[in-house]
């Protein structure tokens, strides 16, 4: 009996469990509960094909879908001082950073890339809510400044996808100081006469909305994204009343005049191309699917060499 229970049964079990589907193959939509196959969901930009719920998308996945042929070049971001306050809550800040890096495979909460969308050269920055709640750190501030500087250098518009709970507490006042710093980045774009387009994604709150995320020439939000300054719970505790349905959601903000548009992620790229080409005085975009470029590295480099418009 012992041999059977201790050896044979685990062996049999392990053979069968190995044949089970890997965990990440199916994702359940947290809105409607539909089981979605991983290929289907990534082809659909992480939008539920049943209820159009917009799920989280990482900056890399977004850039892969955004740029022509998924080709872009990372814009380098200067490293700030690590853990300037020697911050420690229940965990040390460097440990929280390491955990976030391991979880996301990214260095920090913002990714900056340059490339073309619909043959329109842009610089794009995307915030990663999966990395410590996307919180605005010194690195994030540096990333936005680097993005703006690169955009000015290349004479391109900047498209910024925001997603954050606010400033990073572990960097204290230096996190907060990214509000004026990123505002200066936005001013650089404005002075250079370049469009700055903000796409607010779920969720964008706190000091991030109170700085670069609300200063766009055009403000677009993804459907149902939570956007606001104060958290709903804090507001309810302060005013002691229930908040209305849809409060601080993209559609609610649109209704209150705080946004230009609410756009489905699947139409976002086309819309960005259309808007940017008009603001940059370019010819109308080519309709339909563009073939993926063949000689990819060259194309990614090419826009930099083109004469400025």
């Amino acid at each position: 009996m012992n041999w059977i229970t201790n050896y044979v049964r685990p062996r049999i079990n392990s053979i069968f469990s190995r044949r089970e589907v890997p965990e990440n193959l199916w994702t359940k939509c947290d809105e409607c509960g539909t089981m979605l196959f991983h290929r289907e969901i990534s082809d659909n930009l992480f939008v539920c094909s049943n209820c159009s719920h917009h799920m989280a998308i990482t900056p890399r996945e977004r850039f892969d879908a955004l740029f022509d042929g998924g080709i872009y070049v990372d814009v380098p971001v200067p490293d700030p001082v690590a853990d300037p306050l020697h911050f420690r809550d229940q965990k040390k800040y460097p440990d929280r950073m390491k955990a976030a890096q391991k979880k996301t495979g990214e260095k920090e909460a913002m990714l900056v890339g340059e490339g073309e969308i619909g043959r329109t050269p842009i610089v794009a920055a995307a915030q990663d809510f999966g990395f410590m709640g996307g919180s605005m750190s010194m690195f994030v501030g540096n990333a936005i400044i680097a993005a703006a500087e690169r955009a000015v250098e290349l004479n391109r518009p900047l498209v910024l996808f925001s997603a954050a709970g606010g400033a990073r507490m572990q960097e204290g006042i230096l996190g907060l100081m990214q509000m004026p710093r990123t505002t200066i980045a936005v001013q650089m774009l404005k002075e250079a006469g370049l469009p700055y387009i903000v796409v607010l994604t779920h969720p964008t709150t706190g000091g991030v909305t109170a700085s670069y995320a609300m200063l766009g020439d055009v403000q677009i939000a993804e459907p149902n994204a939570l956007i606001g300054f104060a958290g709903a719970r804090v507001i309810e505790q302060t005013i002691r009343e229930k908040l209305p349905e849809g409060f601080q959601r993209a559609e609610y903000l649109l209704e209150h005049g705080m946004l230009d548009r609410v756009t489905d992620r699947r139409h976002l790229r086309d819309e960005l191309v259309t808007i940017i080409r008009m603001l940059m005085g370019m010819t109308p975009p080519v309709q339909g699917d563009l073939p993926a470029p063949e000689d990819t590295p060259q194309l990614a480099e090419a826009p930099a060499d083109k004469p400025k418009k």
Partner: protein
Amino acid sequence: MTHYLDFEKPLAEIEGKAEELRTMARTNEDMDIEAEAKALDTKADAMLIDLYKKLTPWRKCQVARHPERPHCKNYIDALFTEYTPLAGDRNFADDHAVMGGIARFHDKPVVVIGHEKGNDTQSRITHNFGMARPEGYRKAIRLMDLADRFRLPVITLVDTPGAYPGKGAEERGQSEAIARSTEKCLQIGVPLISVVIGEGGSGGAVAFATANRVAMLEHSVYSVISPEGCASILWKDAEKMREAAEALRLTAQDLHSLGVIDRIIPEPSGGAHRHAKQAIAEVGKTIQALLAGLSDKSPEALIRDRRKKFMSMGKRGLEI
């Protein structure tokens, strides 16, 4: 009646005893207690100096929020002449959490803007405890524009727990108003001096304090989030505010080491609330000195100076 903070309890006892003795002596003329009362006074003074010499970050938060601490209105009344309040954002309302207008500072016309908390129940409600709504920031933007047009230096006095978390405030664009106010601070071609006189609460403070020079009173605080808020998020326990206050490095001394503020203004022994006049005068002196240092700069140089200040921020951490 003096309002004592929890850590001032031993002090309250001694001062109470001295007071008691003196009351007794008033009704009974034969008693000679003056010597004893004087001794108690000396003891209290020594204790006060001792207590305030090494305030922990959390205690500093308590002092910064002290109900009797001089507020914006007290500073404006004492330091400025011909103060002419200007009201309204021309869109929706006049926000009483933010006061501002034109005034003379040492005979020179300036624009002064600040958060006002109020000093009794009625005025606190009127001023919404110093928590501004979008209209407050939009009023400030309007006043900064006015200052820019007529070449008047701007002085902002920061004292807010944070921007008001309300339904209407959100609907009318609280975050946009703060972002625009910060942007305006960076755009004006006149000297902008900011003094944190009490609480510098997060974004609500940044909207006024994106200045050429930022000074803080010795026991004031300036933070990304309140210690209570930070504790409830990171410690999952709002009661851990002492630890959070420690970790956040929100004191004037830490901010000065980090290069975020330019100057610390000393407070009289026992805090600004015990000797308001003296504290206010010190703030006045600092504003004057900081303004003098910027007086010969051109509008372009002032804008450049402000940008450079914030762009180079964060180059150094705290040494431990």
